[in-house]
Structure formats: C-alpha cells, structure tokens
C-alpha cells in the first residue's frame, strides 16, 4: 500500500483539513467554497475512521465484555467511531443539500456565483 496505509491516515486527514480550510478562505467562487466545505467534512470523517482502528485508551470495543472472546475483541475495530461517522456523514450530506439549494436560489436571483459581486449586491 505504500504510504497510503492507516498509520498515515491521521496526517493525511489533518493535511486535507487545513488545505480545504485554506481553500475556503481563498476561493472566489461560491461553488468552490461549497466544494471545500464538503472536503473539510471528508477530512474530519477520515480522522474519525483512523480513531476506530488504533489503540485508544479503551482498546476493547464497548460491547459486552466476555473473557473468552478477548483475543478476538482486541483485533476488531472500535465500532463507536464508525457509528458516529455514519451520523456525521448523514448530517453533512443534508447540510450541503440545503446549502446547494440556497445557492441555486441565489444564483437565479443574481446570476452570479462570485463572492465579491454577491456581497456588493446584498450587503447594504
């Protein structure tokens, strides 16, 4: 797998986080801002996925404790981050859907996706 393994996932996700944050700050087009918002969400989700696959303070997943299954339990991933990630994905998806709907309405109104022009038109 080379450098793209789970060990490096944290660095990649943090890098993606700050790259897309930089993108949000600098992009001139509203659509690009929205894309970077989606990317920043992806970065956070990647980070959470990494959390499920490492030795945290509780290496054993918080399911019913059974000494007979101890060997097995130490090898499987922590299910909690995965469950939370799913929730985060759904929320992120719905928020982006609303944002894009709003963008659509704005674009029909003003015919531009440029932040500067929109701020001139709308800000009074």
């Amino acid at each position: 797998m080379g450098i793209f393994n789970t060990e490096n996932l944290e660095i990649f996700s943090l890098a993606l986080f700050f790259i897309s944050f930089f993108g949000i700050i600098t992009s001139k087009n509203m659509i690009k801002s929205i894309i970077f918002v989606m990317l920043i969400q992806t970065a956070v989700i990647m980070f959470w996925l990494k959390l499920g696959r490492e030795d945290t303070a509780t290496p054993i997943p918080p399911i019913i404790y059974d000494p007979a299954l101890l060997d097995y339990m130490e090898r499987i991933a922590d299910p909690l981050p995965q469950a939370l990630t799913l929730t985060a994905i759904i929320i992120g998806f719905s928020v982006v859907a609303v944002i894009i709907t709003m963008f659509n309405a704005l674009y029909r109104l003003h015919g531009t996706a440029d932040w500067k022009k929109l701020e001139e038109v709308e800000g009074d």
Partner: protein
Amino acid sequence: MLTFLVIVPVLLAVLLFIFSTNITAKIISIVFQSALFVASIYLVMITRDAEVITIVGSYDDILGIILRANSLSAIFVMLTTFIFLAVSVYSYSYKDRRDARTFWFLMFVLEASFIGLFLSGDLFNVFVLIEVSTLVTVILAMYDRKKRNIFHGKVFLLANVVSIQFYLLGLGYVYRITGAMDMERVTYALAGMDAGNLLLPYALLMTAIAFKNTLIPFFSWTPKTNIYRKSPTVVAAVLSGLQAKTSLYLFIRFQEIFEPIAAHDLFLAIGIFTGIFGAVMAICQSHIKMILAYHTISQIGLITVGISLGNEYAYIGGLYHIFSHAMFKTTLFLSSGIIIHSYGTSNVNEIRGVFKRMPIVGAATAAAVLGIVGAPFFIGSVSKYFISSDVGPLILAVTIALSLGTIISFMKFSSMFFGQSELRGDSPKAEVCKSIPVIVMGVVCLAGGIMGTQFIYFFFRYSVGIQIWSYAQKSIIFIVCALVGYLIYKYVVKGNALLSRLGAVSFGFKSVCASMGIFLAALLLW
C-alpha cells in the same frame, strides 16, 4: 422523564403538521407550550436537590446515551420553554402567516433541539443538535420570502458548518485521549491530566464554541448580526434570546470539562473587548433590530467576563445575567416588532412618540430598556451588581465603561419613546396578542430587579445578600453614567457621519473563516 421534554415537541410538531388546520395549530401550540413551561419549572424544582438522569434506550449507563439535568441546564430549559411560550402567544395574531403549520413545525423542532442541547450529557449529541438547530434557524430566518434573506442566511450557515468541523475534529482528539463521549466521564478522565496533551483538543473545541459565542477575535458578528436584519421578529427574538444562550451554556460546560487547561484569563480579556466592541457598534447603528443585535454581542461579552472572573459572586452574577438578558432582549425584540408594524419603518431616527401611541407596550419596553442599562430596581442592576461586586479596579472600570456604552446606545433607542410622528404602518394600534408577552416580560424585568435575591435563590440555591450601601453606591454611579451618556450622545454621537460609516463595517464569509484560523492559532500559542 427527560426524554419526553425532547421528543414530545417533535412528535407534536409532526402531528400538527399532518392533521391540523392553521388556527388549531396556533391554539394547540400555545396550550402545549404552557404545559411544557410548567413541566420545566417542575424540573428546576427537583434538580435543585439532585441531578436527574435518564438513559435513553434502557441500556446500562456505559452503553446508553445519557440525558442529564442539573440545576444549570434546568434553568436553561426553563428559559427556552418560557421564551417559546411568549413567542407562540405573540405570533397568534399573525395574519400574513398563511402556512402557520410549517412555521410551527420548524419552531417546535428548534425548541426540541435547544432543550436536547441543554440536557444532553453526550458530546457527540451536542454536535448533532447544534447542527439541527443551526439548520432550522437558517430556514426560519429566511421564512419571509418577500424579504429575501437568502444571502445572509447562507453566509451564516456556511460559517457555522465550517466552525462545527473544528468541533468534530477536537471531539475526535477527546475521544482518543479519554475513550469516552459522556461529559461527566470525560471530565473525570481529564481531571488529572497534563495540560500539554489537552491543548489541541481544547483549542479546536473552543474555536467552534467561541465562534458560536460571537467573541471578538472573530468577525463572526457579521453573519450573526446580518441575519437579524431581515428575519421575522419572533425568529430574531429566539435567535437573540436563546441561540446566544446555547453557546454560552456550552462555553460554561467546556470550561468545566477542560478545567486543567481552561484559559480563564484569555477569555476574560476577550470578553472585555467583545463587550466594548459590541457597545460601540451598537451606538453606530440606526436599524432598530441591528441595535439590539449588536447589543446582544456586548452583553455576551459581559457575561463571559462574569463567568471567567473566577469568583463566586461574579459567576452567579454572570448566570443571572444570562437569565436577565434573555428576558429583556426578548421583550425588546418582540416590542420592536410591534413598533415596526405600527410605524412601517425600522429606522430609529424616524420613529417618535411610542408612549403616546401605545402606552402600555411602551411602558413594558421602557422597563426592558431600564433593565438592560442596569437602572436601579430593574433586573440588569442586580446581575451587574454581582459581577462587579468583588473585583479589582480594572474590571470595575471596564464594567462601568460597558454600562456607559450601553446607556449611550440606548439613548438613541429610547428617543423614539417621545415626540411626535405621523408615520403609519399596517397596524397602528398594538394588537392584544402581541402585547401580552411583552407586558408580562416587562413585569418580569421589574420583578427580577426588586426580588433579585429571591430569584437567585430559587434558581441556584445560593443565598446572596445585597448590601444597601454598595447598591446605593452603584445606583449613584449609574445616575452619573446616565448623565454623562446623555451628554456624550447629544454632543458627540448624534448625527456623526464617521460613526454611521463605522456601523456599516461588515466582513465577508472568507474573512469570517480566516478569523477562525487566527483564533485557533492564538489559542494554540497561548
């Protein structure tokens, strides 16, 4: 029991949306809000003695998601239900609201998400509920289609979505360090920990929380205040009265959770600057809702100062100021809605003679104004008295400067009480339904001042005494401040072109986001 407080509003909202007509939706919502308010008072009564804990889904407490009501969160729940009750009575007479069902559906969901936020004992649920409440707030703020609030709503939503990513990332680090999501467990696990390890999660989480709080290093007041301008009155009232409170509640909670590293001094300084800045910006405005919106920021600064000072009196004062701020700010927003309807304009410089046209509503509004400037015998004076009761000369000077700023900005606001104006709006007379909540809350503004110690005892089980002599001293300071404020207003502020240009300063979405990065860097370097 706590589950019902969260789930019943949502279920009722769905039922109303499907089955009822507009009129019945209004009536049922008022009845239901009253019942919810009574239930929340009961919750305040029982949580004073012991915490109430509900584990959702009947798992044991390791696996289950916990709802936890302590005395702090119960007060916030009570505030929520009270303000929603006031708002539902207020909007009973809306005639132009053709689709009251949709509106009330969204309002109920918003209420449920606020209550859930206050009761949640789980850090991830806090994230979910913040997202829900932000989304619903934005949709409600754009509700008046004629006013086209889309752009400001979009900036608000985008900025909030970006800030919440910091929260989620910080939460990941918390989970990695402690292996828990439950607030109490996390507090317990972090208690003895080395501050160096906690710096990154603390900085990430606090960036999100401080953004929501509109503290000063952010230009975050830009989306927050711009959204007020065109949103419906009741939504503006809820935004200022409650949404600001959710972030303050989270701020208090996170400072408790991260006790080993909590940067009280930094937030004290930030609070001071926020307070002064908000007051200065409020002076520069002439749109009636914008004055109130900037004022909210100034008051949040004062509350942050009270909470971060670290002495018990100031802490109680800060908490009581949260309550009083919710009271007078909701009153002011609702009555400003009545006034705007009555005069057909939202420019403070054109509205004159409110007392003459609607004496009772005018009196209630005046009570709220006196409360916010901290006049003796009104609600604001008690909380300001406690915040500044046991502090050094620097903080004392700051609080006096803050009340001076408040007084100056409300000189402009209160000039609309007197005089004569021929402007006519849709409904020159104040409607009964709209007046009732304004009057009731105006009375609370007075009662909360006169019986301040009793209120504080009821809320916090904390008996405090107000010393007559120092209270009188504070009152004299207030009167001097009022005179000075009047003079400054008359000779400096009035008609100053520079100030109104300053008031129009507003930042774009990109600088708002950049400020998040700056704040994160500042916290990491602190």
